[in-house]
């Protein structure tokens, strides 16, 4: 249940962001109605995000086929801020990206282009002077956040470039995965049917 709460919180933050940053609506136009899923291996939990035009919807415990599926442990995901580790992570099978690379790229560029004027938004709630103070005192964190943001961007870019150079051709990998998935589903169905017959 905690994951569902988390997804609700993330969703409302993202939707708030859409209000603060109208530019996002434009840059996410290509992502509309596509689903990007992030599987946290250590939580054994998959979150998914979709943009339906003027609004985000975040799913927790997502089991459907997503347009782009990223799988990694939380630790690996935080390591993504160091792009040089990327190819290595994929080779070590610590990170996996299947499906629409473009979608991941679109998302990362849309989010890294955000430049919110926090002082202006804050001042509407608490007045100019205190707003400035809050901004100053959080500036350090802000700069840090920006660094993380920009290195995340370059990371994803690199991910997409490196992916193409990783030993197996991505299309082959993709097809292989689709096959295994298909077989897995069929096996599950078969099992179900056998179970039914046995129970009769």
């Amino acid at each position, binding site marked *: *249940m905690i994951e*569902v*709460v988390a*997804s*609700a919180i993330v969703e409302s933050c993202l939707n708030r962001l859409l209000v603060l940053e109208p530019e996002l609506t434009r840059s996410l136009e290509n992502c509309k*109605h596509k*689903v990007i899923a992030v599987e946290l291996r250590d939580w054994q939990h998959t979150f*998914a995000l*979709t943009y*339906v*035009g003027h*609004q985000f*919807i975040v*799913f*927790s*415990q*997502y*089991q*459907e086929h997503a347009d782009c599926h990223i799988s990694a442990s939380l630790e690996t995901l935080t390591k993504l801020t160091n792009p040089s580790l990327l190819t290595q992570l994929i080779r070590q099978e610590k990170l996996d990206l299947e499906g629409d690379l473009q979608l991941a790229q679109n998302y990362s560029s849309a989010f890294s282009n955000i430049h919110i004027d926090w002082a202006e938004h804050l001042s509407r709630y608490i007045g100019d002077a205190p707003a400035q103070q809050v901004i100053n005192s959080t500036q350090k964190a802000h700069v840090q956040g920006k660094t993380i943001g920009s290195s995340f961007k370059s990371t994803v870019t690199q991910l997409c470039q490196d992916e193409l150079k990783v030993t197996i051709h991505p299309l082959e990998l993709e097809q292989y995965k689709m096959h295994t998935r298909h077989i897995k589903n069929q096996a*599950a*169905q078969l099992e*179900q*049917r056998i179970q*039914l017959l046995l129970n009769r």
Partner: protein
Amino acid sequence: MKESPQDTADFGYKTVDREEKASLVADVFHSVAAKYDIMNDLMSFGVHRLWKRQAIACSGVRKGHKVLDLAGGTGDLTAKFSQLVTESGQVILGDINDSMLKVGRDKLRDLGLVGNIEYVQMNAEALPFPDNSFDVITIAFGLRNVTDKDAALRSMYRILKPGGRLLVLEFSKTNNEALSKLYDLYSFNLLPTMGKIIANDSESYRYLAESIRMHPDQETLKSMMEEAGFEQTSYQNMTGGIVALHRGFKY
């Protein structure tokens, strides 16, 4: 008491005529319609939103899908589905009660959701659609109010497309004893009192509490779904089993 089980049905803890049940249930929802959303938030401390959120995540609803939100009431699920299926899909909000439908329609219109939603009054036991019509059917907190649940499940199965799925979100049985005691105390004492204060209608809320207890538990509902033809049926408990989400497919 046992002489003619076919002619009677449970209305909360009372046993009533089958036909009477439908109109008694209708009365309950006519009288709660206006305050339904507020009461939902208060009664569940907002948690019903999380339960519904999980149902939506498990629905697999996508662009272009045709979805039936059965016993949809004030349309919480319909609102999300409408955004997910886009203009190329369609959502039908079905309910037996026109007061609930009206509250739902007004609410969704205010949210700016128009174009791909239809509002249809219907009885879950005899759904007015041709075979193989829907990709997804959901029934959230509705099945326990239906008199003939088996007929309703069969009817849902009939109108699902092959490959389509049914999701049943409903109160269920918790196996945690402490939680169960607390929950009893809450629903039989606090809940009708809240209903009295806020909606001036403790009877309806007493019915809700009782109908929850009379509803089949997880395994029973799962086998009822299988009986109706559904395959790959499964369920997940939420909030310690106070609520369960059942899922089944038609192949």
